[in-house]
């Protein structure tokens, strides 16, 4: 039979647990979140920080431009302006995904703006900063230099990409 002292102890423990959980909730709410745009490419999941993505466009006719590296697909018209489109799969050295439906993320980093061809936009979510981990050492070397981190979403691993490094790679090609 439980003594009064035991009940008091359990109450205290329960109270501590509740308090701890409340603190965790407060911590969770206050923890910085990063909005990301998740997308699929060549069967894997990737993301750009939401601040980099201006618009999601269906892939329309792309005008090729001669004399440019193979990672530049060409030019598109967006509300009367001309934007470039880059082939993210080629930059990341991924297998070609020709024939699939594709989209263009109009993205910007610093003063550079370009369309980035992807397979499919999957979701736009808020990810706690603490959930974004460093890229594993086992990551393919072709991708590693463009990776800002990795996180889990619905049981899938999502690779967060650094758009500035991607654009720098295109410019240096």
């Amino acid at each position, binding site marked *: 039979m439980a003594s009064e002292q035991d009940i008091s102890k359990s109450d205290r423990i329960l109270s501590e647990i509740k308090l701890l959980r409340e603190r965790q909730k407060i911590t969770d709410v206050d923890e910085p979140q990063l909005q990301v745009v998740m997308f699929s490419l060549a069967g894997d999941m990737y993301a750009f920080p939401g601040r980099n993505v201006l618009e999601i466009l269906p892939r*329309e*006719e792309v*005008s*090729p*431009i*001669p*004399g*440019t*590296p193979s990672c*530049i697909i060409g*030019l598109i*018209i967006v509300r*009367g*302006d*001309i*934007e*470039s489109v*880059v082939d993210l799969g080629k930059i990341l050295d991924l297998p070609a995904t020709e024939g699939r439906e594709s989209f263009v993320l109009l993205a910007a980093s610093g*003063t*550079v*703006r*370009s369309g980035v061809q992807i397979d499919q936009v999957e979701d736009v979510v808020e990810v706690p900063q603490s959930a974004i981990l460093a890229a594993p050492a086992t990551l393919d070397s072709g991708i590693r230099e463009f990776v800002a981190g990795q996180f889990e979403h619905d049981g899938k691993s999502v690779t967060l990409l650094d758009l500035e490094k991607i*654009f720098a790679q*295109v*410019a240096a090609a």
Partner: protein
Amino acid sequence: MTGVAEETYGAGTELRLLVFSIDGSRFAADADQVDSLQLCDPESVPGHAVPFHEVVGFTGRAVTYRCPEICTIRSEAGICRLVIESPEDIIAVPWESLRPLPALIEPFAVQRGIWAGIAESNRIILVIDLCRLASTGNLWKMQGDI
């Protein structure tokens, strides 16, 4: 003090552009840069004329000209003869409707003389400076060399 007034470009100034297509891409060249155009036989293009696609950077695929013309450009640097597809149009384009090329494209395109674009319904016309193309491609010849 006397001097030559510099040409200014502002709203309303128009460029006369020669529009031609090569392998599905449309180009527009400043008509003022073109000295002459001369039809030639697709089977016997003169050796001194350089196919446009070779210097502008089309790589990895064969390009055929259905109705080739020899486009002659003259400048202080010399004479350059390019083989282009027969122009489909001459258009007058207001200066302000030219669009600068995106930052990622410009460094590559400028090396090939491509310096602006025209957004026309769903297609883009690439505006090309033929003199710059001739210079970067080292294509200028002296009159006696041709």
